[in-house]
């Protein structure tokens, strides 16, 4: 059979239409398209794609099932490795992971592994496929802190092995960044996120919301008074960074976390909900990562003229290519090589503008990217009425500061062994952004998975 180097295009909402709604941008493959795309897979004997996957999904195996139109079989194949396929199929950076390693990518388009994973997961949800396999109960209790990607994965894997698992979640809803951070138009909450959370509950995992570890109860209390045999910390990197420039506490300056939480978790875009959000007429989002793209596309949908303000050039934007592409299609304006130096306010204290300076790229810095350097005398004022700071996040010290014996590094990240997630405290494991600082959903899932293995080993000794 001739090799087909061109992927089956995926259907998307028209950019002009979707810029005004919160419905999902990408519509995904239907069965026919999925089978056609699956047939492009060469079923390599030594599949490079699997090596690119942080949770080692047997990619050729599930794609093989799609080729045979055995979609249930494909779902079961993925379920052996991942509890969140509908999420990963949507938000993983496939271009640098599985698809980035696909041999077809050398001469043409890689197989659209992410879109096939998404199709499989969506099909299995729509057809109510039961993916639950339970083991004999082991009579050992594990506490998981945080119901985000790391915690959900770790909890799901441990439950499958027969452990009695309780997840403690600080917010009122499970999902972590999947609920509060990533917008509805990229990751539908009720259909996709909550469904995958329900699947994890079906494995027997209990989720206690509104419990802040370090405030409501401490890790020592969980282990000593509530008799948990092991703890996994997947509390994420929740603290937003600000620039520390004048005017930053003005009204109309918010962190991307606040903005996205109001809109995603608290559904401020929906009139039925009581959450207030400021929409702004001209919004500047400072930063160039995936969170910045989410924030700027949210501002656009709320009716603003939406700008990305980024201090390096477009080539250095850390966001996924697909997100940048989507943002541009929808009408987001990119102001690159631009850095804010001061936020200006009107007499009432509202944002009235932003003083910026133009940048140029100098020598590469320690990250390997060319360092942005200010061009003297290039200051100018950008007229904006709202500024969203999206400069990254760092781990919350609530847990580390209340857990004696738990070591952190100078960035307040919890120190944990890379392969096992074991921390400096016996029986306590950690993974995801709490350890690495802000990274991706799938890396957090990989860490949750490794920790589940290690916890099983530890409790089986």
């Amino acid at each position, binding site marked *: 059979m001739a090799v087909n180097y061109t992927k089956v295009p995926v259907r998307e909402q028209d950019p002009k239409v979707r810029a005004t709604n919160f419905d999902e941008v990408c519509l995904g493959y239907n069965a026919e398209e999925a089978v056609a795309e699956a047939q492009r897979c060469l079923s390599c004997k030594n599949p490079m794609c699997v090596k690119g996957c942080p949770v080692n999904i047997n990619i050729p195996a599930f794609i093989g099932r799609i080729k045979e139109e055995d979609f249930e079989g494909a779902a079961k194949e993925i379920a052996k490795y991942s509890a969140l396929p509908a999420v990963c199929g949507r938000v993983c950076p496939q271009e640098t992971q599985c698809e980035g390693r696909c041999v077809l990518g050398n001469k043409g388009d890689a197989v659209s592994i992410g879109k096939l994973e998404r199709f499989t997961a969506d099909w299995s949800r729509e057809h109510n496929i039961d993916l639950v396999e339970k083991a004999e109960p082991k009579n050992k209790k594990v506490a998981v802190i945080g119901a985000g990607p790391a915690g959900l994965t770790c909890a799901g894997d441990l439950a499958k092995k027969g452990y009695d698992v309780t997840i403690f979640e600080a917010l*009122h809803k499970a999902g972590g960044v999947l609920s509060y951070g990533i917008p509805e138009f990229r990751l539908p909450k009720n259909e996709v996120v909550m469904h995958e959370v329900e699947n994890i509950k079906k494995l027997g995992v209990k989720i206690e*919301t509104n419990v802040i570890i370090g405030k*409501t109860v401490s890790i020592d209390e969980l282990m000593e008074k509530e008799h948990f045999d092991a703890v996994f910390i997947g509390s994420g990197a929740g603290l937003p960074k600000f620039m*520390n420039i004048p005017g930053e506490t003005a*009204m109309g300056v*918010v*962190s991307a976390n606040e903005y996205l939480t109001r809109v995603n978790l608290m559904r401020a875009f929906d009139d039925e909900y009581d959450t207030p959000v400021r*929409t702004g007429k001209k919004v500047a989002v400072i930063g160039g990562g995936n969170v910045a793209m989410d924030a700027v596309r949210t501002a656009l949908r709320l009716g603003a003229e939406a700008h990305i303000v980024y201090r390096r050039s477009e080539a250095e934007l850390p966001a996924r290519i697909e997100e940048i592409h989507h943002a541009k299609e929808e009408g987001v304006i990119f102001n690159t090589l631009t850095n804010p130096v001061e936020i200006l306010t009107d007499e009432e204290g509202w944002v009235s503008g932003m003083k910026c300076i133009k940048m140029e790229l100098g020598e590469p810095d320690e990250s390997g990217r060319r360092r942005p350097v200010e061009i003297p005398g290039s200051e100018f004022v950008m007229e904006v009425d709202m500024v969203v700071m999206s400069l990254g996040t760092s781990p919350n010290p609530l847990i580390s500061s209340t857990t004696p014996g738990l070591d952190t590094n100078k960035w307040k990240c919890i120190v944990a062994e890379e392969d096992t997630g074991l921390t400096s405290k016996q029986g306590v494991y950690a993974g995801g952004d709490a350890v690495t600082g802000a990274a991706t959903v799938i890396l957090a899932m990989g860490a949750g998975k490794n920790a589940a293995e290690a916890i099983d080993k530890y409790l089986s000794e």
Partner: protein
Amino acid sequence: MYKIIKKQMLTPTIYEMEIEAPRVARSALPGQFIILRIDEKGERIPLTISDYDAEKGTVSIVTQAVGKSTMQLMTYNEGDSIADFVGPLGCPSDLCSESLDELKKKKIIFVAGGVGAAPIYPQVKWLKSKGIKSDVLIGARNKDLLILVDEMKEVAENVYIATDDGTAGFAGRATDLLEDLVNNQGKEYNHAVVIGPMIMMKFTSMTTKKLGIHTIVSLNPIMVDGTGMCGACRVVVDGEVKFACVDGPEFDGHKVDYDGAMRRQTMYKTEEGRAKLRYEEGATHKNGGCGCGGEK
């Protein structure tokens, strides 16, 4: 779900609710707050803890019906449940971490403005349980807005009342009474805890500064998560940006930028005003209202 065990109207618009939340009750200390959400579509409302009972597993809050959510909560009765109740949040009062010897050296006055009496109560009660005496000054616009006076009398050494219109106690502002106590009645204080509306804390702190009394205030800015995640609650204290939810809510009253904090409190005033109107008048504002799109 979190059950309302007891509800009491303290004035026609101020109410106290005792809510079943065993985990919060076990860990709560004076000075901390909680966040509650009435139902699936509600806002997250931060409220300072006004009392807690670890054995009973309950936490009490006092609030005044001023906006849509607090008006809606007021319609809830004993036996009803609310969707979410999380805490205790923020740092406990500094008094809680001081040694008994240090506490004994303090001559403490609590100054409450209106509903601010509620978060002061557990601090006074806690001190009494340690054998430490303290005075309380409650100020309100008129006698109908005074709350917890009898409860306070049980735990405080002296309770002083000031009303703007003179319908109860001293006729005048809390600050005037405080100056009178110190300057004319021979009272001596070296530590003040001031809780009330932002403007009241600002002016009372100015008075205590003049009187040379070290002062702590408890800020109640806009919040979302209450764990340091959103930064909505940032305030400038001593020239530095702080998150009230994790660094506070209590700060040195002489170092807070009150004007900035007051401005930030009004950030969602229009949106909140519209929500209140919708609640009071029904969905007459459905189609974007006047079409201004929620300008300031």
